[in-house]
C-alpha cells in the first residue's frame, strides 16, 4: 500500500514537472493558473449550498456533477481526468465569497461550478472576474448574473435559462392553457429571483389582456402567511403566481389551501425540491404547476439515458432538474476544455463563450452574447405529490 502511495506521489511530481516545463515554453504566461492541471488531473471547483436554507439544491447539483465526472473520466479530457474540489458555502453569500477566494487562490481550479442561487453566484462574480477564472452557475437564473448595467461579466456563465424566460412561459401558460383572466402575485421581497420572475410575468400577463388583481409580499424565513393569503383570497384571483423558494412556498401552498384558495397556483424552478411535497402535503399541491429546466418524464432519448444512469448510481432515485443541470454543467465545462485543448482558465472562458449547439440533457444549448443559454423549458404539474410532465416550450 505504502509503496503504491509513494509511487503515486512520485508520478504526480513527474507530471507536475512536465506541466511546469510546458508552462515555461508557452507564451501565454500566467504560470500560476497552470497548476489547475497539475498531476494529470484538471481541478474543477464546486462552490455549492451543501448545507443551510437551500441545501437540497446544492446537494442535488453535486450528485449530478459527480455522475458526469465519472462518465467523462472514463475517457478523460485531453488525456487528463477531471477532479472535483467541493466547497460548502452554507447557503450564505459571505461564505460563497470565502469559497471562491479559496478555490481560486489556494486550490487554483480551472473553473468554478456554482452557486445554485443567483445571490450566492453574484457574490463570487468579483473574484472570478479579477482572477480570470470562469464561474459557471448551474441554476442561477437572475438576469443580472452575467450582464449588468450594460456590461458583460465575461467570466461568468450559466447552464440554465434566465428568469424573464420562466416568467414569460408561466404567463403564456396561464393565459393560453389555463385560460385565466385575473391573477394574483405573491413574491419573496428579499429575493432578486422572485422579483425578477414576478416582473416578467406581470409584463406579459398584462400586455396580453390579463389583469393582476392583487400583489402581496413576504420575506424569506417567514412562517405565517395567513394574513397575506386572506387578502389574496379576498381579491378572488383565478390564478396565483408564487415565484419563491420551496421552504416558504411549501408553507404558502398549504396555508392557502386551508384558507380555501382553490385557484391554480404556479411557480418556477425554486419549487423543485422533495421538501416541497413534505411541507405542503400531497393534496394541497394538486392543481399547481411549475416551469422547469427539465423533466425526467420527457421522452427524449438523451433524457432517458441520463435518468437510467442516474438511477443506477443513486439507488433508483429519479433525478430532478438540479441533478440534470449539475450534470449538464459538468459536460458544458468538459466540452469547453476539450475545445480549448488546455486547462488554462482564460482559454476555457473563450471556449465556453463560443458554445453553440451543444446537446445536453436540458436541451440543445447555444449561448447568446449575454452568456445566456437559449434552450427549451418544460411545464410540470403536481399530481398527488408527483411531478407530471405537462408540456415543453421552445424559446
Amino acid at each position, binding site marked *: 500500500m505504502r509503496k503504491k502511495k509513494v509511487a503515486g506521489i512520485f508520478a504526480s511530481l513527474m507530471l507536475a514537472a512536465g506541466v511546469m516545463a510546458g508552462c515555461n515554453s508557452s507564451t501565454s504566461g500566467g504560470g500560476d493558473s497552470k497548476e489547475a492541471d497539475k498531476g494529470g488531473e484538471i481541478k474543477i471547483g464546486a462552490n455549492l449550498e451543501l*448545507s*443551510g436554507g437551500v*441545501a437540497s439544491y446544492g446537494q442535488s447539483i453535486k450528485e449530478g456533477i459527480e455522475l458526469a465526472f465519472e462518465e467523462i473520466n472514463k475517457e478523460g479530457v485531453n488525456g487528463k481526468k477531471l477532479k472535483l474540489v467541493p466547497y460548502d458555502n452554507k447557503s450564505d453569500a459571505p461564505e460563497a465569497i470565502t469559497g471562491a477566494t479559496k478555490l481560486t487562490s489556494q486550490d487554483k481550479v480551472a473553473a468554478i461550478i456554482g452557486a445554485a442561487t443567483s445571490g450566492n453566484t453574484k457574490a463570487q462574480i468579483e473574484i472570478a472576474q479579477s482572477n480570470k477564472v470562469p464561474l459557471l452557475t448551474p441554476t442561477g437564473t437572475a438576469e443580472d448574473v452575467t450582464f449588468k448595467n450594460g456590461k458583460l461579466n465575461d467570466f461568468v456563465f450559466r447552464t440554465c435559462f434566465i428568469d424573464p424566460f420562466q416568467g414569460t412561459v408561466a404567463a403564456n401558460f396561464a393565459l393560453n392553457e389555463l385560460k385565466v383572466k385575473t391573477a394574483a402575485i405573491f413574491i419573496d*421581497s428579499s429575493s432578486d429571483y422572485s422579483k425578477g420572475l414576478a416582473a416578467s410575468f406581470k409584463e406579459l400577463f398584462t400586455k396580453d389582456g390579463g389583469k393582476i388583481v392583487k400583489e*402581496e*409580499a*413576504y*420575506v424569506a424565513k417567514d*412562517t*405565517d402567511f*395567513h*394574513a*397575506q393569503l*386572506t*387578502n389574496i*383570497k*379576498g381579491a378572488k384571483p383565478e390564478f396565483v403566481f408564487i415565484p419563491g423558494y420551496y*421552504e416558504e412556498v*411549501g*408553507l404558502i401552498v*398549504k396555508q392557502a389551501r*386551508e*384558507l*380555501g384558495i382553490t385557484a391554480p397556483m404556479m411557480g418556477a424552478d425554486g419549487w423543485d425540491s422533495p*421538501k416541497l411535497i*413534505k*411541507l405542503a*402535503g*400531497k*393534496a394541497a399541491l394538486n392543481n399547481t404547476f411549475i416551469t422547469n429546466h427539465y423533466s425526467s418524464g420527457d421522452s427524449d432519448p438523451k433524457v432517458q439515458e441520463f435518468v437510467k444512469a442516474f438511477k443506477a448510481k443513486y439507488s433508483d432515485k429519479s433525478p430532478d432538474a438540479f441533478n440534470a443541470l449539475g450534470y449538464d454543467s459538468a459536460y458544458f465545462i468538459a466540452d469547453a476544455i476539450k475545445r480549448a485543448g488546455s486547462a488554462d482558465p482564460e482559454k476555457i472562458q473563450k471556449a465556453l463563450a463560443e458554445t453553440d449547439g451543444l446537446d445536453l440533457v436540458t436541451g440543445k444549448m447555444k449561448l447568446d452574447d449575454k452568456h445566456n443559454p437559449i434552450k427549451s423549458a418544460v411545464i410540470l404539474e403536481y399530481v398527488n405529490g408527483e411531478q407530471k410532465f405537462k408540456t415543453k416550450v421552445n424559446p
Partner: protein
Amino acid sequence: MFPIPFRKGVAFMEQLIQQLVNGISLGSIYALIALGYTMVYGIVKLINFAHGDVFMVGAFIGFYSITVMDLGIFPALLVSMAACALFGVLIERIAYKPLRNATRIAALITAIGVSLFIEYGTIYIRGAQPEAYPDGIVPLKSIDLFGVSISGQSLLILGVAIVLMILLQYIVHKTKIGKAMRAVSHDQDAARLMGINVDNTISATFAIGSALAGAAGVVFGIYYTKIEPLMGIIPGLKAFVAAVLGGIGIIPGAMVGGLLLGVIEALVSAAGFSLWRDGVAFVVLIVILIFRPAGLFGKNVREKV
C-alpha cells in the same frame, strides 16, 4: 340580489373576521410562550431569553415523538411538555441558580448565553436543516362559517391554549404550589421565613413555564409545519413583547398581550403592510415602554429603595 355596496361590505367583513381568526391563532402561540416569560420574571425578576429555545426544543421533541415513536398528537404534546418541564428545571438549576444573588445583568447575560448554547447545540447534534411535521395528523376538518374558513389546526391551537391557560389559573390560584409561587413572587425572604421552600418553588415555576413553551412548540409545528433549530428566536422575542405589553410578571397580562399582538400583526398585514409586520411588534414594545412602562395590566408601583 343585494346591491353592490352591501355585497362589498359583506366581503370586507368576511375578510376582517378571517384576519382576526388568523391573528388569534398566532396570538395563542405567543400567549403560551409569553406565560413562561412572565411567570419566571414574576418570581425571580429574570428575563429568561432561553425561553424561546425551550419552545424550539419542545417542537423537536414533539416532532420526534410523532415520527419516530409513532405517538398521536395528544400523547406527543404531553411527552413534549414533560420533557420541556424537565429541561427548564435543568437550565434553572445549572445556569441560573448559582447566580441568584448576583447582579441582574449577570443573570441576563447568562440567559442569552444559554439561549445561544441551546440553539447551536441543537444544530451540532442534528444539523441545521429544517424538518416538516407530518401532514394530516390533525383529524379535524376545517369548518366554514359565513365564508370564513377556520382550519382544524387553528381550532386545535385555540383549544390547547385555552385548556392550558385555565389549568394554569387553577394551579396558581387553587393549589398549594400556586400559593407558594404567589408568596415567593411577592416577597422571597418573607416566604422563606414562613417555611416555604423557595428553591423548589422557583424550579416549579420554570417547569410550568417550560411545559407551556413545549406545548406551544408542538402546536406551532402542527400549524406551521416547518421547524428548525433557530425557529425560537423571533417567536421568543415577540412573546417577550407580548409579556411586556400585558405587564410583565402578570399572568392574565401575558395572555391578553399575546392575543393582542397576534391580532395587531394580522391586521397590519391585512392593511397591506405585511413587510412591516415584525417591525410593528417592536414599535408596540417601544410605545408601551414610553407610555405605560408597567404594561396594560400593570399597576404603577414605585420601587422601594
